[in-house]
């Protein structure tokens, strides 16, 4: 996987370069930032994260499992009546259902984050600079071998302080 990484000292230069790059029609872009910054992410990847759907699925599963578990186990031994309450006493069972709703929802959410945020990334080998976790920003432009020269020269113009190619 080839491309060029530009390292920027501040956000403004990055934004400028990014917009410029997009006008140039380079599609495979990625940016690096030391902190979450919605506006920035809007530029690189508009649209909402699919994690929300995982959350929804998780919560629904949780609710169903909760009710299923409580009711099914109660029916396993119908003899065990307690305190004059019916075998299937929903009010208490709802408590369990609720907790499982939350639990499964949370698990699914994290699962979603791990999938889209981590696993997916594993299969694209991106360059990195340890200053990204401190105060620097980065812009990665993916391109074919022969384009590299051209991209690199552009990057040098774009206000980046350093650049790497691979």
């Amino acid at each position, binding site marked *: 996987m080839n491309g060029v990484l530009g390292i920027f*000292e*501040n*956000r*403004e230069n990055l934004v400028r370069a990014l917009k410029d790059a997009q006008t140039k029609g380079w599609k495979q872009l*990625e940016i*690096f*930032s*030391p*902190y*979450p*910054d*919605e506006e*920035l*992410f809007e530029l*690189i*990847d508009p649209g*909402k*994260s699919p*994690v*929300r759907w995982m*959350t929804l699925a998780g*919560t629904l599963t949780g609710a169903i499992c909760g009710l299923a*578990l*409580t009711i099914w*186990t*109660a029916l*396993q*031994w119908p003899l*065990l009546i*307690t*305190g004059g*309450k019916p075998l299937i*006493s929903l009010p*208490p069972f709802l*408590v*369990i259902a*609720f*907790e*499982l709703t*939350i*639990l499964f*929802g*949370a*698990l699914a959410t*994290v699962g*979603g*984050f*791990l999938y*889209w*945020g*981590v696993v*997916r*990334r594993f299969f694209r080998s*991106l360059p*990195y600079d*340890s200053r*990204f*976790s*401190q*105060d620097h920003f980065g812009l990665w432009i993916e391109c074919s071998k022969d384009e590299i020269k051209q991209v690199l020269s552009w990057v040098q113009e774009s206000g980046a302080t350093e650049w790497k190619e691979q």
Partner: protein
Amino acid sequence: MSLQESTQATQRGNFQKVNRDVLRALQPGPLYFALLGVCLIVIAFGVWAWSHQVLEGLAVTGLRHPVMWGAYITTFVFWVGIAHSGTLISAILFLFRARWRAAISRAAEAMTVFAVMTAGLFPIIHLGRPWLFYWLLPYPNERTLWVNFRSPLIWDVFAVGTYFTVSAMFFYVGLVPDLAVLRDNSTGWKRRIFSVASLGWLGTGREWKHFSSAYLFLAALATPLVVSVHSVVSWDFAVAIVPGWHSTIFAPYFVAGAIFSGLAMVLTLLIPARAILNLKDYITLHHLENVAKLIIVSSLIVSYAYLTELFFAWYSENPFAQTVFLSRAVGDFAPLFWLMVLCNCLAPLLFFFRKLRRNTGVLFAISLLINVGMWTERFVIISGSLAREYARTSWDIYSPSWVEWSILLASFAWFAFWFLLFIRHLPAIPIAEVKESMHRAAHDPSSLHTEQQT
């Protein structure tokens, strides 16, 4: 133009400073190791006390007919309560966009996790046959015997279990970008560990995007959860018929109490921590003051609940309830009751004075008082009611034995132990979030403005 240049320069400077300070905070001093040692000794003693109890039977505790629940359950409720403010600060305030929370959220989350870990031990410690604790879990077995989902204790298992899992995940997810910081600033095996722990975090736009959304939804789930957990805990008592327990207001009453005690614990922990780790620039008086304000609010709610209970007892003309509350107000439990009123209702009122709530000494002292007060409150509610049940011929008085006291003490050591490990090995303030709020401050002064207000 040049102005912008300079602001950018200062921002970069700040960003570097954040990393520097946080990383410096991870260098422990001798005091740190002294504390750690003390904790370990106290824990060891607690473990010994408990094993004594397991071998001898519960006769070594102060428990007796009819007071079957005492210090252990009290402590359980206490620690669950402590946990709550963590989630309040990290999740609820996050949803409400109260930016000032950023600096203290990490510590608060850690506190939640450790508090739940501590609380979770007590239901097991208090069992008559603790080696069978796993019977409280619904696992398939050849007896085809499951658990009784009508029992509040099972609700506890699920609520506390869920709470622990969710807050642990919340804590970890929030930690990932900062682990990357640690990775980038460490070498050798530490670096390996951190790079695994940080899931190879690069800080790319897409990572951040999914991160933020996951974080948001976790917060959204944690918020109803935190309310449900202490409601469930309160139902341990509210659904029982014991006079003094059987009350409709318990759920909100306990949730408020939980947050109240938790906030106090936040102060108890942060005031020394920020001094020792000198993070005064990040955890500022301003933060502490905001916590103090929240304390006033929750304290007033709790006081209101006390009055409501007394009013119910009087107005219902239920002689049993009246017996219980009279025994609290003027009977054997009066000293504890009034101590609790002093700590939970009167002391926090001092925070109405700006001078006092901006004085760390006062803040710390009162936060300690509140911790004591809230433990006492649960003790009075639990043991006090049991000691004065319907069958007056079986009334008795309960006071914890040395075993119970030492296990209670050990629980604090256990909690402190984990918290110490935390501040030593992980960034006590969320680096990325702090940077983000710095960035906001730089770019739209309004957010800075709101920060002052909240």
